[in-house]
């Protein structure tokens, strides 16, 4: 199975008899699965959550690579994009997306080996994300995977803790969130029904770089978040988040309070929030041990059944 799924977009790409127009190095690479599109509209149709990187020509029959960049940033904002063309960079019209980033690799006469190398770097090093990354991000994500986040929403203990927080602080929303590679998933949420947010739209992705907790008394006055439209849409005007840390020291999520008006948090309130976060982290740890013990039992049972079967055969 390929490590990276790539969307390659160029006029004529995919046409029969031309090898699809895809550079040889991309077609040869065992670690790359290449999907192709010959136009902007086809690229939009093909672009989904499985795509790890987009490589596009500038001029497309029904638009430009910059138009595709705008679509990618709206749909899957962390996905890296590359312009692969020989057009003079100075003539590229960046139009309405002049804050977004796309790499430029000259097509030249090579077989695309350099392009393949840049694509691997972009994906592996998450080079086009729009938020700060912890220095131990890979280890952090590995740790998070051990807590089985796909199934965590069934855990009622987190709902009770979030409920307690809303009652105690009198705020609008309390939640337990796990910060995954591309999104934050809410495993408990009281006061609203959020399920997930793109990571770049969350304050929590900044909180996980803190040692303890982060308070933003007025989101609109904090330059890091003042221009974030999604926070305005969700009516998040103040925020307090405490980190959820594993026994090994990896921060995998946050316990948070948000309100629809600016507010401050006293030392006592911060201490209480810390307590709630510690309790949530302990619940996560207990649950991880339980799940691993169950898996161990099942795996042991399977092994003994297999061995029993073999004995029966002999």
């Amino acid at each position: 199975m390929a490590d990276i799924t790539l969307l390659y977009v160029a006029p004529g790409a995919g046409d029969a008899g031309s090898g699809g127009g895809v550079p040889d190095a991309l077609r040869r690479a065992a670690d790359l699965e290449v999907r192709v599109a010959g136009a902007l509209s086809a690229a939009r149709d093909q672009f989904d959550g499985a795509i790890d990187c987009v490589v596009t020509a500038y001029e497309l029959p029904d638009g430009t690579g910059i138009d595709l960049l705008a679509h990618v940033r709206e749909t899957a904002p962390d996905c890296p994009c590359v312009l692969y063309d020989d057009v003079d960079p100075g003539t590229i019209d960046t139009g309405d997306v002049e804050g977004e980033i796309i790499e430029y690799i000259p097509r030249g006469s090579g077989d695309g080996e350099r392009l393949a190398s840049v694509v691997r770097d972009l994906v592996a090093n998450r080079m086009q994300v729009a938020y700060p990354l912890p220095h131990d991000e890979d280890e952090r994500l590995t740790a998070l995977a051990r807590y089985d986040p796909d199934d965590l929403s069934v855990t009622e203990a987190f709902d009770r803790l979030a409920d307690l927080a809303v009652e105690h602080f009198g705020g609008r929303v309390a939640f337990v969130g796990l910060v995954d590679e591309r999104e934050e998933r809410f495993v408990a949420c009281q006061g609203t029904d959020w399920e997930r947010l793109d990571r770049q739209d969350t304050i929590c992705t900044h909180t996980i770089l803190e040692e303890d907790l982060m308070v933003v008394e007025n989101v609109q006055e904090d330059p890091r978040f003042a221009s974030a439209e999604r926070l305005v849409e969700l009516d998040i005007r103040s925020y307090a988040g405490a980190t959820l840390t594993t026994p090994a020291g990896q921060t995998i999520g946050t316990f948070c309070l948000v309100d629809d008006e600016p507010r401050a948090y006293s030392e006592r309130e911060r201490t209480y929030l810390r307590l709630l976060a510690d309790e949530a982290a302990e619940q996560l740890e207990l649950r991880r041990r339980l799940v691993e013990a169950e898996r161990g039992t099942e795996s042991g049972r399977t092994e003994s059944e297999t061995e029993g079967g073999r004995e029966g055969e002999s």
Partner: protein
Amino acid sequence: MYGFDSGLDLQPVSPGTSVVITGPAMSGLTELTLRLLACGDREGLIVLSTDDPADEVIANYERRDGRFDHGRMAVVDCGKARETTSEDGNVRSVTSPTDLTGLGIQFTSLYEELYRGGIDAVRVGVLSVSSLLLYAKEFRNVYRFLHTMTGRIRSADGLGVFALDPSSHDDRAVQSIVQTFDARIELRETDGGREFRVRGLAEQPEDWRSYEPVAPG
């Protein structure tokens, strides 16, 4: 390794490193940044200038380091019509510091040209991150831009030197942006002159060290 002029008490740093220099813009921030960008004979250079026109950057650079070699050195400035402004294509412009898309395209295309020209050690300077933050429509776009640059510098074994004047920004924003880099050099002015100290680089002096400026700026 990337070395520095002997007037600075700095040990060479490893390829792939990106350093932010923080200090007052009017007290030698540009001067110190350009000194760290002074290239060896076989190194390449790309400077992104948000405030000063390219010819001024080149004049400043030459005042400290001798010749600006167009065969392996390039400048992208902001504020002119987007067009190639030199015959060799190594002096370029984007319309404004808000056009991070254009800056990113010019930066990566120049890096690729140096790479294809066989230059595998490249120093990259940004003068300055402060202006990018001031002009950016969204703060997070600056993150994405800086991640792209530091990521490219890391994977291509380059050296990044980024100038930032903290006094122009909210402390929270500065702390957050500084986390993007591998190391920080703090600059300050004292009664007797100028001093710097290093944070985050192995085998470098962490205490304040004085140095002599080589030219105003």
